[in-house]
């Protein structure tokens, strides 16, 4: 893994010989990713029950500091990682998206718990968003209700693996014209407007079918009215 694709690779035998002498050979990219993965600062942002398990993870027994992610920042400007811990209600969604937009690049999102993944047990609720991935891109999903602290640590390790695999050359946040801010939905009497961000999320096939069927029924209903169709003609 070189910085550029054409850069020479080091012989593994020579590398291990040098390591015995106390000389470490690495690439800029590895060093860069090692630094980033070892100091992921999460946003101190709890929504519901899962937030308590997030706090428990930060406490002495599970000690998230072993993974370099103990510094919970209250300000999104200083945070690298947003742990969406808890039920995202429709009233709260604009704030969550705004917080994501305010975070500086590179930024990652972990959804913790069934609620933030897909609504969880409260899926049927009229005020519950069925998954925050409708509005912002999510890197790691951690199922559970609530997930155990070990699960959160596992999710963090998965994220670290993802960071290891990223390269400076193709990193999204260095590309020109890369859009990493997402429109904030408006919360009104009819819920969220728009209900999802089509750039990030698309409804599954059966949901789409349902929607088109409902629309067709609507159109059918208007055609039945002869007066209205006459006016439109």
């Amino acid at each position, binding site marked *: 893994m070189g910085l550029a694709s054409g850069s020479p690779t080091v012989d593994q035998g020579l590398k291990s010989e040098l390591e015995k002498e106390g000389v470490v050979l690495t690439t800029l990219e590895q060093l860069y990713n090692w630094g980033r993965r070892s100091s992921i600062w999460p946003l*101190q*942002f*709890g*929504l*519901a*029950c899962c*937030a*308590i*398990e997030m*706090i*428990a993870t*930060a*406490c*002495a*027994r599970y000690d998230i500091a072993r993974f370099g992610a103990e510094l919970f920042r*209250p300000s999104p400007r200083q945070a690298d990682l947003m742990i969406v811990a*808890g*039920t995202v*209600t429709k*009233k*709260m969604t604009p*704030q969550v998206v705004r*917080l994501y937009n305010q975070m500086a690049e590179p930024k990652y999102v972990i959804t913790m718990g069934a609620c933030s993944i897909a609504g969880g*047990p*409260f899926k*049927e*609720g*009229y*005020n*519950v968003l069925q998954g925050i991935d409708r509005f912002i891109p999510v890197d790691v999903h951690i199922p559970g*209700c*609530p997930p*155990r602290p070990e699960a959160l640590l596992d999710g963090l390790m998965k994220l670290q693996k993802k960071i290891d695999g990223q390269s400076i050359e193709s990193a999204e946040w260095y590309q020109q014209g890369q859009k990493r801010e997402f429109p904030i939905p408006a919360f009104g009497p009819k819920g969220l407007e728009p209900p999802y961000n089509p750039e990030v999320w698309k409804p599954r096939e059966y949901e789409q079918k349902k929607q088109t069927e409902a629309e067709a029924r609507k159109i059918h209903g208007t055609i039945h009215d002869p007066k209205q169709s006459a006016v439109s003609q």
Partner: protein
Amino acid sequence: MTNTIETQTRPSLSTQQLEVSIGPQHPSTHGVFRMNVVLDGETIVKLKPVMGYLHRNHEQLAENMSWLGSMPYTDRLDYFCSMTNNIAYALAVEKLMGIDVPERAQYIRVIMAELTRLVNHTALVGFLLNDLGAFFTPVLYAFREREKILDLFESVAGSRMMCNYMRFGGVKLDLPDGFVDCAKAIVDNYPPFLEEMERLLTKNEILMARCQNVGILLKDLAVNASVTGPVLRASGVNYDIRKIDKYGIYDRFDFKVPLGTVGDVYDRYYVRILEMRESLKILRQAFKELSAGPVISQKGLIAAKSPRNMKVPAGDAYGRIEAPKGELGFYIVSEGGTKPYRYHVRAPSFINLTILEDMCLGHKVADAIIILGSIDIVLGEVDR
């Protein structure tokens, strides 16, 4: 004389009131709570709580599912104290169905309720100190103890936080082997922890300076606002549902109800410390008197085996308990079917929150944060 009056009435600088929105993303609002505060300098002139950021339709969902189906949802009301929430809901349905609870199950319920009180009050002291500016260190101490009790909960219910342990007419499973010994060891090791906490905090000059005479809640106002729990008792009102209602078997235990004198944040903190000591007393008695026997009554067992077919006779019932945060009540109306017709939760922290403005007026912004912390709100319960 006239000169002084003049200087008092005439402001030296022209000032302007400032409106600040604290929350919903704020490190010390205990969740997604928001308050709109009007400030004159640093002094609070007006405070308006904005709720609903965690409105999860608990009541509506419960009205559309079987009676037992909403038991796991009650866990998620006040997510620190899932056991007490379970008990309160079970109590309401048991009243309506006329199910008895066996002796052993009653004792298990008391043990779980008092352990929950320990968890809640310990965590609260940690978070209160967090709000005072002692960032995270007290929480570390508190969560160290909390984890031990959560291990017990996990051994009986299979889950750390969301226990879903109570059933109508008893509890889900009997205690595992060695539970009582583990619990006894925790109870025996709790007083040293409390003493350590008190040595660090109770006579701490910073804590006293910040908490004493801050956010005073007078007796009359507290009673009129139907405040319950440690907040009410800190104001000097002797009202504990464990003593008044004697639900379950609480008449068998010998414990005191600690009362405050001033009704400030410090009293609220100290009442909770004393309450934990009383809880330990109850636990010790319960361990002594715990006898063998069934953990769920026959009628309850039938109901628990086929929850979808379980029918509750028509009528209404109100089951209430002394939850760690105050009076937690479930009001249910049945039409004789498999679903509740109406299901209402009297959430203590929601009702305690209504007097936040009265307590905060005239104080500084920083005091508002600790007053909020001393009420001990959990947003899952406030917004439901």
